[in-house]
């Protein structure tokens, strides 16, 4: 079996240089319901940090990742955060991955002025807590409104339906924004159906959607439910064009999936795996080499977050400041992050005054041909 669990990468094991190493924390759900997403981020972050260290680290000093699992639970996340800050004395933290724990941690981190960079939390409020909180991804309303516009303007849709996960902030946020833009545009929402976490049967909701017969069906959720819904929708003969979100990315790497049902899905994404840019291809290839699977958007963002963080720390070190746990150093790292202006896997990126990224958003279409499906770039649009 090619998929054997990797031993936790060397980053966690104490090595000779530990005393010297610069400690950066990573908060992610590695067990529990949302472990898949946390693991994708973790893998990518480790991949980049290893690469960064191999290339000399911060002027010879390696960065040591301290990875703590928070099970997707805010209480655990705050515990893990406190531990990173107080026991492990990290200089900065990458995380958290999903919205609610990120909120909990963000709130706690403000008082410490701890440099925090979430790779993936797309909820608009995440960066509102304090100046120390950054995100590497775009925000939910951006992609929802983009998708609504795409449906109305490019696809010529008149009616739309939404099926969303009512127990997940990410999904609900996307749904709200989509509905709002649709109303502004005059795209009629003919059905809004919800499901809960762990639901696997969507037939009841899809029956309602089917009888409303919308032109497009918006599915704002991660790729597993998205795939299941797509498949069951096909089974039930729903012909609406399916619209996904960044969470949809990765859907083609589901092992054993019937990819024909995914044909024609459009989704907004942070990057395009097929992008010919060198940085993207290197990342995709390295990731495949190490983990045996294609990186999804979460992984790409994890990689970017690590890249931004490492660069920020390096630039502080270059300025002659000692990298430690002091308030000055924290502020310096924060300043360095907000000054970021670099090309990452997900495109060229700077931060605005609210610590949100300014970058492009890719729209991907899945095309099924000759027994296999591929992502195709439909277009790039500036987010916000």
């Amino acid at each position, binding site marked *: 079996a090619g998929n054997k669990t990797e031993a936790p990468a060397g980053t966690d094991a104490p090595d000779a240089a530990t005393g010297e190493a610069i400690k950066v924390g990573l908060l992610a759900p590695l067990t529990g319901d949302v472990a898949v997403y946390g693991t994708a981020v973790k893998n990518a972050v480790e991949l980049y940090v290893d690469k960064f260290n191999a290339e000399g680290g911060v002027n010879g000093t390696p960065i040591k990742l301290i990875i703590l699992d928070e099970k997707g639970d805010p209480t655990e996340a705050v515990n893990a955060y406190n531990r990173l800050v107080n026991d492990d004395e990290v200089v900065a933290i990458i995380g958290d991955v999903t919205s609610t724990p990120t909120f909990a941690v963000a709130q706690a981190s403000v008082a410490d002025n701890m440099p925090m960079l979430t790779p993936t939390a797309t909820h608009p409020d995440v960066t509102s807590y304090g100046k120390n909180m950054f995100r590497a991804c775009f925000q939910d309303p951006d992609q929802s409104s983009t998708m609504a516009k795409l449906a109305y303007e490019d696809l010529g849709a008149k009616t739309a339906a939404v099926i969303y996960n009512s127990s997940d902030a990410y999904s609900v946020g996307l749904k709200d924004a989509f509905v709002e833009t649709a109303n502004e545009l005059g795209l009629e929402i003919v059905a809004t159906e919800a499901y809960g976490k762990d639901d696997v049967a969507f037939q009841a909701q899809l029956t*309602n959607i089917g009888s409303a017969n919308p032109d497009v069906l918006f599915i704002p959720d991660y790729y597993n439910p998205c795939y299941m819904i797509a498949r069951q929708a096909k089974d039930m003969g729903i012909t609406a064009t399916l619209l996904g979100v960044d969470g949809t990315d990765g859907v083609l790497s589901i092992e054993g999936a019937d990819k024909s049902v995914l044909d024609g899905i459009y989704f907004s994404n942070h990057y395009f795996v097929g992008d010919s840019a060198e940085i993207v291809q290197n990342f995709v290839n390295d990731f495949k080499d190490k983990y045996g699977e294609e990186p999804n958007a979460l992984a790409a963002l994890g990689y970017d977050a690590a890249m931004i963080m490492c660069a920020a720390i390096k630039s502080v070190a270059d300025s002659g400041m000692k990298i430690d746990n002091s308030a000055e150093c924290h502020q310096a790292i924060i300043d360095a992050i907000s000054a970021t202006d670099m090309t990452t896997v997900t495109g060229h990126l700077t931060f605005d005054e609210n610590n949100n990224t300014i970058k492009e958003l890719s729209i991907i279409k899945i095309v099924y041909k000759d027994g296999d499906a591929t992502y195709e770039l439909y277009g790039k649009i500036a987010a916000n």
Partner: protein
Amino acid sequence: MTILNQIINGIQIGSIYALVALGYTMVYGIVKLINFAHGEIIMVGSYFTWYTMSRLGAPAWAAVLGAVVFCAVLGMVIEKVAYKPLRNYARISLLITAIGVSFFLQNAVQLIFKATPRMFQNIFPGSLKLGGMVFSMSAVVTIVVSVILMIGLSLLVKNTKIGKAMRAVSEDKDTAQLMGINVDHTISFTFGLGSGLAAIAAVLYCSSFYQIEPTMGSMLGLKAFVAAVLGGIGSISGAVLGGFVIGIAESLTKGYISSALADAIVFGILIVVLIIKPSGILGRPENEKV
């Protein structure tokens, strides 16, 4: 025709609940244990089938058979190791151990196979047209299997020697021993049977919903357990009836009331039914003579 379609949807998911509920009811009926690990045994059964089919390339029938045997043995081992030492203690201790076992299985599988969901082939492809209605083949198989198993199990428990032994053990272990019944064997058998049922449920579940993951057992288990209680726990036909009722109720609330509130409404139905009929729809009230 949406109402009919919604009812069909309900029957399809309900038949899965029914099948899982049968396993709960079997074990509960004998050991009076809410076997929280039952959902996880289904999960393990699913992984077994998936692994043997898509990794080892075994044919479907062999994978299913293997899963049944594997789960039955697993169930018996769990009983021997984790439940038997607690047999004479408060039932709630047993409940906690069962929860421990379910955590363990869930996390062990996650450690071995990672958290990534795996896709499952549909073993029963195709669909069946009946009048104007379309049933997926796996739903038809699930419905048929759960009804057959319900009848088979009822006969087993009511009429066979081992069935009577099971009922006797469930009432009074000591006295059952005085009748010449080997309590250990009987309980082992019950767990084996219940877990074997779990494997069958696993296969049919996977066939209907295509996807497996380490946490899949908990919600399914919970819903099925609710179904078993609704039908009257300990009652075999009750479990099946409860499964269908929950499935249809769920589907109709999603279709006509609110898909966001569906879980709340289904639990509401359960509560109302239990308040009207405290021992479930087909459950026998406990006759305690004063």
